[in-house]
């Protein structure tokens, strides 16, 4: 059993990661960090670069959490990558970060988190930036 966390280098992503670490420690399971990009633009600020990944790696290692970090670039959107990983590893929990948006904004933009919430087969824990402990 594993916990899957969808990570992006933003406050929401950090909140999700922090929460996921707490959950993984509680249930003593493997933490799978997913940070993906469709890879169709030259620049994607939601794709973590080498130093950021390294710092997460160090952080998880010092906290003694069994972890895997994956950065798939396969042309799928982030929701598909997280759902794939959850299914493949038979996840017990998915942790994601939510952005604050108005209902209208949600209607127009759609969202990665919405798709994960609707399609996941396991419980999903949604965290907002600045609220996670």
């Amino acid at each position, binding site marked *: 059993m594993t916990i899957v966390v969808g990570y992006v280098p933003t406050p929401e992503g950090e909140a999700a990661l922090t929460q996921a670490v707490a959950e993984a420690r509680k249930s003593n399971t493997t933490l799978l960090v997913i940070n993906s*990009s*469709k*890879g*169709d*633009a*030259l*620049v*994607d*600020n939601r*794709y973590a*670069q080498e130093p950021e990944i390294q710092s997460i790696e160090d952080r998880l290692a010092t906290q003694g959490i069994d972890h895997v970090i994956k950065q798939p*670039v*396969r*042309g799928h959107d982030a929701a598909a990558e997280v759902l794939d990983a959850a299914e493949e590893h038979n996840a017990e929990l998915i942790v994601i970060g939510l952005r604050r948006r108005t209902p209208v904004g949600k209607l127009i933009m759609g969202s990665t988190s919405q798709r994960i919430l609707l399609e996941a087969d396991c419980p999903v824990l949604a965290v907002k930036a600045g609220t996670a402990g």
Partner: protein
Amino acid sequence: MDVFSSLMDGFATALTPMNLLYAVIGVILGSAVGVLPGLGPAMTIALLLPVTYVLEPTSAFIMFAGIYYGGMYGGSTTSILLNTPGESSSVVTAIEGNKMAKAGRAAQALATAAIGSFVAGTIGTALLAVFAPIVVEFAVSLGSPSYFAIMVLALLAVTAVLGSSRLRGFASLGLGLAIGLVGMDSVTGQRRLTFGQPLLADGLDIVVVAVAIFAVGEALWVAAHMRRTPLHVIPVGRPWMGKQDWKRSWKPWLRGTAFGFPFGALPAGGAEIPTFLSYVTEKRLSKHPEEFGKGAIEGVAGPEAANNAAAAGTMTPLLALGLPTNATAAVMLAAFVQFGIQPGPLLFANEGPLVWALIASLFIGNFLLLLINLPLAPMWAKILQLPRPYLYAGILFFATLGAYSVNLQAFDLILLLVLGALGFMMRRFGLPVLPLILGVILGPRIEGQLRKSLQLSAGDPAGLLSEPIAVGIYVILAIILAFPLLLKLWRRNRPAALQAGVPATRSGESEPTDASGSTSHGSHRATTGGDGDG
């Protein structure tokens, strides 16, 4: 005083509100395509050619000039912030510029690039205004044999000097000349390379060829290499420079200009060699040599000035002789023909107002670019976040529309696809695109001069050597072509001198290639150089 008053008339034309608007559109478009690696001013002008038929030629060329200069500016932004050269001429800028950005001096790097480009572009354009009429005076005295020789020199020199492999260069040139031959023989009316297809009798339209090779070929190439690890742009605020930066930049700007203009004006020009020479010179002359490799401002200021001065230099042979030396100039030459304007030494006499308005618009474009680029640099970097499927879908749409609208023939769309596939294969096998485009555009003009010379001498090949200038050019040509061979012999005879000799003589072509090869986009960028330097 004649030049000055003509230029003032040019300013009067270029500063009318409509023309000013086209200049603004041009520089914005140019900066955008310059920022995006793989897209260049040559492709943009080719795509816009059919759309601009409805415009006054003057307005269209003012816009093209803006795109050309804008592309030169835009390339440096990507080089500095992303370490991926947006243009082949900004490969050298990436070496120091990206290091500066990583050290937190992105704002200064962008500022010295933008202001240096402005200084060099303005001086270069002034030199163009002074020298072009002189070149014209000299050029009208030349006969067909000399023209033929100059064009052959331009074709072979560009092919031999640029790019990493001469064989690939000449293969590409051969393809271009073959495409240029398709159609009716202008003297005898025989059909050549038409394969019995009557629609080919008029030859291939240059717009279709250019759009297919630049736009469709590039789109297919990107589609084949779609997914790649995304990068982060180094965040930057508004570019600015401190007093120390000004002090260290102004000399490299002027030296870069001195390198750039003559190289741009020579038939074997292009912006790669002068940018590299400028970099090497600055490294040698710098008071802070220890900073080179770690982000020295001189290493950004010099090459950026050089590439903009080269851009101005390139306009000299284009306007004075009708001789393009890079891809953008080649497409602009095609544009002259499309608008029914005869390029060549008589251009200044026949189309004086247009030419001077064009030169004036280069000054204006330069100034606009400085105004636009200093505050908007962070915005240009955002363009890089655009998902490429959307971008290339738009380009393919315009490519198809453009190719169809030239003759309103569905057959041209088939040609577009076939030549687009050719463009893709050329990128796949590392053939440079520039020689092909020059071959297609200059081929028929060269043939015209050759036929004229031979007709004058009643078919005697000795007629080609009847003018002293032609003979001189053939000698230069022989030296250029034999040089690598001699170098090899010399190296074999003196193996001890190998270490010293090689970097000094060959570095001009090999180093920039290495620099771009080390970026994530792979080495094909260096060989497609043509669509960039223009």
